[in-house]
């Protein structure tokens, strides 16, 4: 007999609230006037949806804390509430709220302000929740599709812009293709175990032997789908085009929410479902991580478009996070969590500086467009410098803590080769990040950018800036959060 218990409700509620508010925004759009003010109200409603979901997530945290962080399994093992899911839900909620705050002015300027945007952001966040907490492959798949389909539409949101359409089309086709691989892998897992549950998978795998070809096929196809979602080589090709063409606010959301939720899924599948088959997937992931670092960092050198450069750098970051998973010890997992948290704030911040600057009515995009920013708008240039330092992993910014833990875990587990490769690519990344810095502070430009910050943009810039500095100087609370999220 199927039932809907109070535990189920408690675990589901934040995601449910996001979906409900998404539907509400869609329908209320018809009741509010079609002007700036009416849209403002709807943004408020969407934001309050995120607020309610955050409050409910906080209640979940308090409950888990009172029960010594014992995972709460709901829907007959399809969905789980543990510190890990809560931590990544938190990143998704924060990025959704920040993106909504910065989108208002941007979409007004691009003359494509439709309130479906906010509904789609809410739906994408809801889908991400099921990736963070899903234990059942069917649940995971539905969540993944909910998130992906929302993002396909968001990427093509600038309907009259050719590049936006191209980006959406490429993302849709390649995304659909990769999802096909993922679901093929899942179907083989189902064939092997007779269950769609990841926990059931873990109990069957030891019996299959180490070099079972069918198991190998399932792992490889599943990895194809997952590596695509996190934007890791050799399935990264969609990322530069999609990041460049998408509205910059969506690029920031895609780079943060989609990537962190997909990493949560990757970790869950690899550590819960396939934890006992580590010797099978570790070489594959190691190869992918080295390739990702190489392609991401080397291709970023030659980019002239900042959005494209950040896209390649985001591919490179996926490589570092994979290294933390490969190291496999507790430090590595803390590193993955903290890396994704710091990466979220620095990435949103860096894209936000691009959003705030416009030139001839068009948002700034190339490196030359940033010229003499340091002289004209020193605060914005300093903030950009801060975010870039954090992305490069320099102290005293947040990014340093993430990279430190990743490298520490590699050294602890004796993988010195990988640590050296990673460190070399940090040096490479310094070059292209500081090309931007040089353009901002050392290059002169006759034509000026115009600053078009709304209050939302100012607020989010301040928040991400403070977060980036605070995590760099006082990392202990955030590290403790990451450690709690892993149940220690």
């Amino acid at each position, binding site marked *: *007999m*199927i*039932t*809907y218990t109070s535990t189920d409700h408690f675990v589901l509620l934040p995601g449910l609230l996001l979906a409900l508010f998404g*539907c509400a925004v*869609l*329908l209320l759009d*018809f009741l509010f006037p079609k002007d700036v003010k009416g849209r403002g109200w709807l943004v408020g409603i969407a934001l309050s949806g995120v607020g309610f979901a955050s409050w409910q997530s906080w209640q979940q945290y308090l409950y888990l804390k009172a029960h010594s962080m014992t995972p709460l399994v709901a829907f007959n093992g399809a969905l789980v509430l543990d510190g890990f899911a809560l931590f990544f839900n938190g990143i998704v909620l924060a990025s959704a709220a920040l993106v909504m705050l910065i989108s208002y002015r941007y979409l007004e300027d691009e003359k494509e302000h439709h309130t479906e945007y906010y509904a789609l952001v809410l739906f994408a966040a809801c889908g991400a929740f099921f990736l963070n907490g899903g234990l059942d492959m069917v649940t995971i798949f539905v969540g993944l599709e909910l998130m992906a389909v929302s993002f396909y539409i968001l990427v093509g949101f600038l309907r009259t812009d050719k590049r936006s359409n191209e980006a959406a089309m490429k993302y849709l086709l390649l995304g659909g293709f990769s999802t096909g691989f993922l679901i093929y892998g899942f179907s083989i897992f189902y064939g092997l175990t007779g269950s769609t549950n990841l926990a059931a998978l873990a109990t069957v795998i030891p019996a299959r032997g180490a070099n079972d070809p069918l198991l190998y096929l399932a792992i490889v196809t599943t990895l194809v789908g997952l590596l695509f979602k996190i934007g890791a080589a050799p399935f990264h090709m969609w990322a530069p085009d999609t990041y460049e063409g998408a509205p910059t606010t969506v690029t920031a959301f895609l780079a943060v929410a989609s990537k962190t939720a997909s990493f949560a899924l990757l970790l869950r599948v690899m550590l819960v479902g396939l934890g006992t088959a580590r010797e099978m997937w570790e070489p594959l992931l190691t190869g992918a991580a080295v390739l990702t670092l190489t392609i991401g960092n080397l291709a970023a050198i030659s980019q002239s478009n900042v959005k494209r450069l950040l896209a390649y750098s985001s591919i490179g970051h996926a490589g570092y996070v994979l290294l933390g998973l490969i190291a496999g010890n507790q430090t590595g997992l803390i590193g993955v969590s903290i890396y994704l948290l710091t990466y979220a704030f620095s990435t949103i911040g860096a894209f936000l500086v691009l959003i705030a600057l416009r030139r001839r009515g068009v948002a700034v995009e190339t490196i030359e467009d940033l010229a003499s920013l340091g002289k004209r708008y020193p605060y914005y240039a300093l903030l950009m410098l801060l975010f870039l330092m954090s992305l490069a992993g320099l102290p005293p910014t947040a990014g340093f803590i993430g990279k430190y833990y990743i490298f520490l875990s590699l050294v602890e587990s004796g993988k010195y080769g990988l640590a050296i490769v990673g460190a070399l690519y940090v040096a490479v990344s310094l070059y292209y990040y500081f090309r931007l810095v040089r353009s901002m502070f050392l290059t002169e430009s006759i034509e000026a950018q115009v600053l078009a910050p709304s209050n939302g943009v100012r607020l989010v810039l301040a928040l991400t800036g403070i977060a980036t500095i605070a995590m760099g100087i006082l990392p202990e609370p955030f590290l403790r959060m990451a450690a709690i999220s892993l149940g220690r």
Partner: protein
Amino acid sequence: MPQGYLPIFLFLIIAMAFPVIAILTAKLVRPSSPSKLKLEAYECGIEAVGNSRGRYAVRFYIISILFVIFDVETVFLFPWAVRFHQLGWFGVIEIAVFLAILIVGYVWVYKKGALEWV
């Protein structure tokens, strides 16, 4: 022996016989005055032979996509109807939630004017 398949087999025979009988009866009864247009294959008003790069209104796509959505809805309703007694009130509520989500989409589509043909 797969005895349970006998009804399916019978159904298959009836299904095959039906168009044959219908076409033969029609041929015997109807008057015959063929023309070029009449002998062409019928394809809902579009010319059967032509350039494959031909253009037609994007509304066809919208209508077909909407059709697929509401078609899939019935796919979910059938198994529920078959197991109505076993699922009980839980099933009723679950289907109500499912339909409510679809109705939100329907209202949105209707209000946006995607169903208007002009």
